[in-house]
């Protein structure tokens, strides 16, 4: 009897307002606001060429932030991103130097190095139970040491392979390939997070690892794989960057750690883990890229850029990043 009655009660249809959460909406609102401010300065800001150019520049950050998001959803953090990026770029360029075979394997090899680095992070966090902030910090220093010893402290002489250049700087039917690469990465990430057991396990672990473990999730393996994916994506971002610039450079990844974290967090992903969606990360990446671009177009001095950049992040976090009052 009761079951029949329950069946007749319709679940409230989710209307579109309840599906879009506040942080993502605010982030997109801020993007539009930024574009409007920019268009007051110069009408070029609303031209398709400028917007595509921004998406292209943002694509590198987008790929790196995707990996960072997986780790932040777990409630962890990956501080080894700078040298994972550089490692990927340098190793892919180095492989290119080894003849035609090396050229073919350049991209997979660069990404593989990043995956291995992420795997070390993951083992440290998942199995040795060392706080992620420390393990990734130490692994970052080790990777830096390896690369400094490998290059002899100079900028590496190897240059990027044609495939890397094509992926990062080429265009397909007027759309920059980098944007397509980011779109594919994003679609895979959305599928992974929303439609697979692995993705659901990430959210579960981020909420309460002990509960996820008791529900039969192999939490340690999931954490390890997530870190490996983060390392691989960071290295892939580095491969693209090397293709864009033509070659790898020392400390090319330093400029990507804080923006990656900021993009994920501005997109509404909780730094404590367990909450957030990929749409928000896209918004965060575009927001940060636009902000940096507008500040440099307006020819504001470097100090002013830093202050405004920090100030905008603080204000946006105060708008919607606040935790509920515990009392």
């Amino acid at each position, binding site marked *: 009897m009761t079951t029949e009655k329950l069946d007749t009660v319709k679940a409230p249809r989710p209307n579109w307002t309840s599906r879009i959460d506040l942080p993502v909406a605010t982030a997109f609102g801020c993007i539009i606001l930024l574009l409007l401010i920019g268009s007051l300065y110069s009408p070029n800001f609303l031209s398709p060429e400028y917007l595509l150019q921004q998406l292209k520049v943002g694509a590198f950050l987008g790929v790196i932030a995707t990996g960072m998001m997986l780790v932040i959803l777990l409630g962890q953090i990956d501080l080894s991103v700078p040298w994972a990026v550089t490692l990927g770029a340098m190793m892919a360029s180095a492989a290119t130097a080894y003849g035609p075979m090396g050229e073919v394997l350049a991209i997979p090899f660069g990404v593989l190095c990043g995956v291995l680095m992420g795997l070390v992070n993951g083992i440290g966090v998942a199995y040795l139970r060392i706080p992620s902030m420390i393990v990734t910090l130490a692994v970052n*220093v080790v990777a830096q040491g390896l690369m400094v010893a490998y290059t002899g402290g100079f900028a590496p002489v190897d240059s990027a392979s044609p495939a890397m250049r094509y992926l990062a700087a080429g265009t397909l039917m007027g759309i920059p390939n980098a944007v397509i690469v980011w779109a594919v990465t994003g679609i895979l990430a959305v599928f992974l997070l929303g439609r697979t057991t692995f993705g659901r396990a990430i959210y579960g672990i981020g909420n309460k690892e002990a509960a996820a473990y008791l529900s039969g999730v192999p939490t340690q393996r999931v954490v390890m794989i997530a870190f490996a994916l983060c390392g691989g994506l960071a290295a892939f971002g580095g491969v693209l960057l090397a293709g864009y610039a033509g070659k790898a450079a020392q400390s090319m990844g330093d400029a990507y750690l804080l923006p990656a974290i900021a993009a994920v967090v501005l997109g509404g992903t909780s730094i404590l883990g367990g909450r957030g969606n990929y749409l928000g990360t896209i918004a965060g990446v575009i927001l940060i890229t636009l902000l940096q671009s507008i500040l440099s177009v307006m020819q504001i001095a470097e100090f002013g850029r830093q202050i405004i*950049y920090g100030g905008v992040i603080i204000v946006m976090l105060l708008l919607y990043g606040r935790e509920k009052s515990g009392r």
Partner: protein
Amino acid sequence: MIGLRYRFAEQRGMLLALAIFILMFTLYVANHPAGFTPNVVQTAANKGVLLALVAMAQTFVVLTAGIDLSVGMIFILANCLASYLLVGTPVSVALGVSGVLLTGLACGAVNGLLVIYGRLQPIVITIATGAVFFGIALWIRPYPGSADGFSSDLADALTGKVFGVFPASLLFLIVLVLVVWVPFRRSVVGRAVYAVGSSEPAAYMSGVPVKRAKFTAYVLSGLFAAMGGLFMTFFTYSGEASLANGNTYTLSSIAAVVLGGVSLFGGRGSAIGAIFGALAFRAIGDLLFVFDFDPLWQPLFQGVVLLLAVSLGAARLFQVRNRLDLFT
């Protein structure tokens, strides 16, 4: 007997850092061409004290289970500011020093207010405030340098030797521990900081002044980071707004704190441990210079030692009796 065991357990991290430091420093001095002379000790002490001050700054915040990623930037800001303010007569130098320290206090207060009343996660918000602090530093000091008439008297006094043997910077650090850390540790606010770090809800339920404790921790963190920046100016006689330096000091401070046995989960450890952690970290870095290794291998060596040191934290796995304990 139980009291003794408890005390030992409480100080274990600090003792480990002390042991690493003594081992590394002995190796360093034993292989140093000049040997164990006051000058060698003075140089090592000056470099170590710099990081020790920033590590102490980090400790206050880490004890509340937070993290301050802006210490390096406050350090840089203080360094740049001091390169302008430490000029002229002793009176104006004294005013300059207090100005730098007040700036540090203000930076810490901003962090504290944003964390407490903004209810934001410290790890994110200090990244953003760090960018602002660095921007201000770059504004006042776009190019490395120092003001005309830079007064080096105080700088020389605090980086020199007392009675020709004991490094003055080390003495300053010891005085600082006795005047600030020990009273803080015994005060109500100090205990509250530990309580908040162990469990904030429990601390709140027990009537611990949670907000006051957190605010004090962030303000003291800003003050100590500014002191570090002041010392940087004492060594170099100039200021430089270097992003790389700021990041290095932030990350090194976390490494030193961890080596010194302060738990990143909050509520455990002491600033004294962090000091030994900082000294040990510096000694490890210097070790390669005396062994005639190619300097290219130095970052790798430092990284591997750091990785091994933090892996020691995995030792607690042997004490786990229930797998669920892993996830706390």
